[in-house]
């Protein structure tokens, strides 16, 4: 089936390539959901001297008002009006108090399509047709005739209307339509959201589910719901080899570095060194000529560059050359699908070698979509693995002391899990690192101390001859076996 590109890339992906030509598609949604902007954007993206786009208004807003509101959008081109995009008011063709009051309007649409073969015709608001027909029977007959005639052409017809969910279930426009695209405005603290769902698209393998939609000066931007791409992103070949973390001691603990294109979860309490490790991981990749992406939800690029600089790693040249990219999004505006879209975009722009997400726990909480998180994470990680990207994901544990919580028990999603934690050493608070898990690879089972110093993340000595390491205190092993069970803090330096 031939398709008409909407000119909105993610929408084309969702629609399995675009809008089917010769079809009637209903775009339904409450006022403020963005349906009119989307339809107008499609018109300006498709209108040409050879094949116009035609925007018919009924009794919603007059064309002049449409045009005035359009001027703020980047896709609007006044020079395209008349010759490429026509705005026509059909209000005077609708005849009140007649059962076939919409027929003159329907005839005008067919005449336009047959005589001038526009690429796309929009009727906004199509819901007004209900007010000018003698009930569902008349409306059904008129829409049927129109859809049947359009089917013989290569024009796509969009009916745009403020339909409720109940109307989508039962109104004749929807049963006769070849496709139904629903737009929704959803109250969602702290920032409300809009999304789009394709409820029906005949003869198409469209992407189901809620796809986030944003309106900006550029017009409509859509983000494909990440999980709907699951299965299209599997790696053809299992990646092989190892990559160095840039921390020699950690490479020893992992028996030669992390498996390439793997996902590594770094767990640890606040301030323990997760970001320092992630920065080192990325800096090492940059030093080796790799392209890297840092996704951050708290510290912005400037702060992270400054932090890396304090460890002696100057990231500025890499940022300027485009080898390094930061994506900073505040928790309040974080959306999982936008994040996934940014990642896919970075991959599409060229080979991406390393990526950091800092941090996972914030992402899950901020996204307020914990119920979908396992499926989302699986898809995101699959897409990264398919693109052979090695990813390090930090996750803050809620306790400063002994914990191995892994974001709702989801550690199975990650190839490797590294635990950072505070330990009590005499009267001091020290830090320890352990490799909890490495998929299909042996690794050091013990703990080592580490420090965050002027050279960043530095792994020190093994903690040997002590026990109780997963509790608060590292204790000398022999003393815990003593009859009086007297305890002393271990001194790992000795």
């Amino acid at each position: 089936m031939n398709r008409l590109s909407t000119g909105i890339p993610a929408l084309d992906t969702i629609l399995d390539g675009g809008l089917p030509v010769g079809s009637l598609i209903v775009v339904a949604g409450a006022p403020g959901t963005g349906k009119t902007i989307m339809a107008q954007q499609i018109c300006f993206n498709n209108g040409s001297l050879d094949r116009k786009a035609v925007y018919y208004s009924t009794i919603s807003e007059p064309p002049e008002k449409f045009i005035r509101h359009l001027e703020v959008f980047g896709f609007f081109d006044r020079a395209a009006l008349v010759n490429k995009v026509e705005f026509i008011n059909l209000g005077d063709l609708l005849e009140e108090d007649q059962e076939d009051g919409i027929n003159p309007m329907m005839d005008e649409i067919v005449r336009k399509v047959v005589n001038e073969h526009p690429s796309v015709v929009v009727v906004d608001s199509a819901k007004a047709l209900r007010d000018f027909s003698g009930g569902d029977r008349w409306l059904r007959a008129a829409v049927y005739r129109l859809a049947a005639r359009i089917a013989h052409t290569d024009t796509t017809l969009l009916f745009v209307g403020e339909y409720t969910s109940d109307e989508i279930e039962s109104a004749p426009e929807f049963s006769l339509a070849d496709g139904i695209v629903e737009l929704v405005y959803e109250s969602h603290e702290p920032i409300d959201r809009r999304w789009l769902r394709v409820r029906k698209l005949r003869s198409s393998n469209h992407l189901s589910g809620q796809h986030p939609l944003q309106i900006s000066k550029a017009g409509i931007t859509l983000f494909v719901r990440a999980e709907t791409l699951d299965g299209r992103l599997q790696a053809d070949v299992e990646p092989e080899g190892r990559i160095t973390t840039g921390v020699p001691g950690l490479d020893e603990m992992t028996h030669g570095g992390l498996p390439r294109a793997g996902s590594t979860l770094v767990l640890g309490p606040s301030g323990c060194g997760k970001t320092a490790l992630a920065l080192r991981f990325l800096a090492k990749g940059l030093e080796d000529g790799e392209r890297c992406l840092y996704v951050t939800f708290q510290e912005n690029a400037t702060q992270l560059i400054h932090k890396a600089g304090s460890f002696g790693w100057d990231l500025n040249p890499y940022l300027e050359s485009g080898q390094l990219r930061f994506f900073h999004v505040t928790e309040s505006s974080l959306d999982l699908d936008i994040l996934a879209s940014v990642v896919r975009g970075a991959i599409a722009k060229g080979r991406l070698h390393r990526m950091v997400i800092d941090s996972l726990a914030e992402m899950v909480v901020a996204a307020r979509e914990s119920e979908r998180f396992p499926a989302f994470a699986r898809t995101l990680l699959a897409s990264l693995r398919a693109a052979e990207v090695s990813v390090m994901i930090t996750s803050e544990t809620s306790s400063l002391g002994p914990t191995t919580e892994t974001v709702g028990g989801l550690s199975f999603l990650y190839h490797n899990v590294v635990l950072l934690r505070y330990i009590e050493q005499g009267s001091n608070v020290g830090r320890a690192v352990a490799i909890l898990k490495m998929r299909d690879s042996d690794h050091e089972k013990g703990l080592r101390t580490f420090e965050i110093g002027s050279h960043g993340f530095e792994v020190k000595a093994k903690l040997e001859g002590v026990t109780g390491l997963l509790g608060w205190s590292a204790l000398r092993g022999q003393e815990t076996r003593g009859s009086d069970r007297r305890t002393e803090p271990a001194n790992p330096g000795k």
Partner: protein
Amino acid sequence: MRILTGGKSVTRILIVDDDPGTRFVLRLILEREGHEILEATDGVKALEILNSDPLPDIVMSDLMMPIMSGFQLIHRLRSEARTLAVPIVVVTSNPDAALGLASAGLVDAIVSKPFTAAAFAERIQEVASKQSRRTLLKSN
């Protein structure tokens, strides 16, 4: 055309526009200037009015309309002897689209939407005066 005191001419103006809001505003501005207004919602309705006497003094047409566009209407008017000389003013959101009509001598003026009432009235008065001079020359 009737001539009022003070040199202002009263003209019969046919407004052809699919948008009732635009027609309403144009009527308001032009009636305030003393003009007589006729209305049509598309090119076909405009032709029906133009088929009856007397001819309007000015046809003011939008370009984007259902059934028959402004382009089609203008070409029809210029192809028939009866309406060949009727002044035509195009009122459009994209004046560039009408430049071809102007350079071909098919229209007498182009007014860009959105417009201010004063500028619009002034433009129409120019066209009306020009037409008035033409009529006087012809009758002499």
